[in-house]
């Protein structure tokens, strides 16, 4: 194969999320980012977003196990993946607000933010879209001799699309290095998955395709990281796909604002009692002597970043109307 002529993927520095406090801080940043945008959309003209509040451990755990050369495909509930990969919350907020300094010049909005320089190569808001694209990205990695594997994030809803099966089948047949990450958050837009799914686990669907799989507590960031490390090690070793299912819960609605009147209050309360941030905080306190003051320090640092991000985004100019017609064709 001839050398890849486009800029290398990825090219920007990717943060290392190594220590337990880093995991907690990364989750806090995602939580603060999503709650700030939820507040802004409730108060003003900021567009609503699809949040993944309550699912932060899934994003941080997996991203902490990836390498800089790995590529990522994600979906409409992507803020956690992007932030854990090192995306600038200011540029992300600017994108959500449709401003010029957004990662996609305001043309994406919240739903399809890609960041080429961070290896977040494609984001599709068509449920299952990322599953249809991941095989091609992995084929590029293989044929062009690039080292990274491909992580593809999707939900239990996407696993109901036919393309889920097409993607797994082709990845298995062609032996593609894909980490399929199913964030099973129990909700498929406004429908609880128990109404649409037979069985409890998406991971059970991997074996018929000869694909290895695991299901872990998606609200335990260290468990997710450990499972993701095992999975990525296997993929790097044998070049074959792996399906990692993370059992988690979407604490907020499908799309902001959402009053969640359709949600069972007892179920929501039970999952909030298993909040990934609170659990990691308690674990740190119990094991490492992590104090209330330490936690307040992390929170203050995160709040300052989100304040700065919101200020940056709000100060970012609107795109020039001429931008309407650019970027359609190469």
């Amino acid at each position, binding site marked *: *194969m*001839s050398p*890849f*002529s*486009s800029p290398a*993927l990825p090219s920007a520095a990717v943060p290392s999320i190594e220590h337990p406090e880093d995991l907690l801080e990364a989750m806090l940043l995602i939580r603060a980012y999503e709650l700030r945008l939820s507040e802004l959309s409730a108060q003003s003209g900021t567009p609503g977003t699809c949040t993944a509040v309550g699912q932060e451990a899934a994003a941080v755990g997996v991203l902490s196990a990836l390498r800089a050369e790995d*590529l990522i*495909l994600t979906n409409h509930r992507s803020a956690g993946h992007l932030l854990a990969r090192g995306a600038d919350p200011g540029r992300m907020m600017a994108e959500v607000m449709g401003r010029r300094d*957004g*990662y*996609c*010049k*305001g*043309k*994406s909005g919240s739903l*399809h933010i*890609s*960041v*080429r320089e961070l290896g977040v*190569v*494609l*984001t*599709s808001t*068509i449920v299952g*879209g990322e*599953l*249809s*694209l*991941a*095989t*091609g*990205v*992995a*084929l*590029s*990695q293989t*044929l*062009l001799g690039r080292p990274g594997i491909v992580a593809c994030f999707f939900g239990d809803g996407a696993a109901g699309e*036919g*393309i889920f099966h*097409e*993607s797994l*089948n*082709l990845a298995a*047949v*062609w032996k593609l290095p894909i980490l399929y990450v199913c964030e099973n958050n129990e909700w498929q837009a406004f429908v609880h998955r128990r109404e649409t799914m037979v069985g409890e686990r998406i991971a059970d669907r991997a074996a018929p395709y000869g694909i290895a799989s695991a299901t872990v507590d998606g609200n335990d960031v260290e468990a997710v990281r450990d499972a993701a490390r095992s999975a990525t090690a296997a993929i790097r070793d044998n070049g074959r796909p792996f399906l990692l299912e993370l059992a988690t819960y979407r604490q907020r609605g499908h799309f902001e604002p959402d009053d969640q009147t359709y949600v069972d209050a007892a179920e929501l309360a039970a999952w909030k009692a298993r909040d990934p941030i609170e659990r990691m905080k308690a674990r740190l306190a119990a094991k490492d002597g992590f104090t209330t003051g330490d936690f307040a320090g992390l929170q203050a640092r995160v709040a300052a970043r989100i304040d700065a991000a919101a200020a940056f985004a709000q100060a970012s100019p609107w795109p020039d109307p001429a931008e309407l017609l*650019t*970027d*359609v*064709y*190469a």
Partner: protein
Amino acid sequence: MPTITVYDAMAQALAEEMRRDARVLMFGEGVATKRPELVGEFGSARIRNTPLAEGIIAGTAVGAAATGLRPIVDLLFAPFLCYAMDELVNSAGKLRYLSGGQFEFPLVAISMTGAGWAVGSQHNHNVEAWFAHAPGLKVVMPSNAADYKGLLKSAIRDDNPVLFFVDIGLLYQPGEVPGGESLVPLGRAAIARPGHDVTLVSYAKTVAVCLQAAEALAATGIAAEVIDLRTIKPLDEATVLASARRTGRVVVVHEASRTCGVGAEVAALVAEQAFDHLKAPVRRVTGPDVPPPASYPLEQAFVPGVDAVAAAAKALVRKPH
């Protein structure tokens, strides 16, 4: 100049472009089975069979295109594109724009359509206008062997997603194909026959119908110009408008159904930008708004015929102005 079929012209284009650029690869339903010569030259990594699953074939092409490869996919029959529509329209056509220009999608999606094999409307349905309506895509549908080769080569080299429609009725039709590079640029129509009384605008197999109609019209003293669009999107507006202004009469001819077809676009273009030159209304001669049937005579009746095209042209020329 050697005379070869459309099928062989396309095979030449594929081999030449794969030889030229190691990032070019081809996959689809039976691609490796049907093209052993390509497997022999380029290996099974670059010529691949796939499951009969158009969604993942197209999606794989889109993902590969965004990250450094230049895939060609064979989706067999155009109606199967419905299964690949999300990947082609929502991903290939939109993600460059939605990402603010961070990605390119250099891919070619080949499919066959058109009357000729009596296969019925789930294998024969001229859907080119659907994709012309979708932003971010290019659409090509050639009429002769030389253009099949030259346009396919250009489509493979283009940095955008190209829908490449093959008219079944032309697949084994021979034609003269020049050697060497002989690229045919995307977005440029050809004047297949010059004339000054009326313009017949067409593409794919109905170009030949128009040429025969022009021959018949010549016998009655009417000089018809025949324009072969070759590329449907981007449309070569300049060539169409120049001819419309010269002749003042336009008939648009295509096999695809009438409503919201390419003919409607060409008619609107001429009405908007050449109205003052028109001596008569623009006419369309197209397939009807019905699913193409299998029965051979019904299928042939679906396609605009020489008599209908000639009659439409005559009616315009005789119209007093």
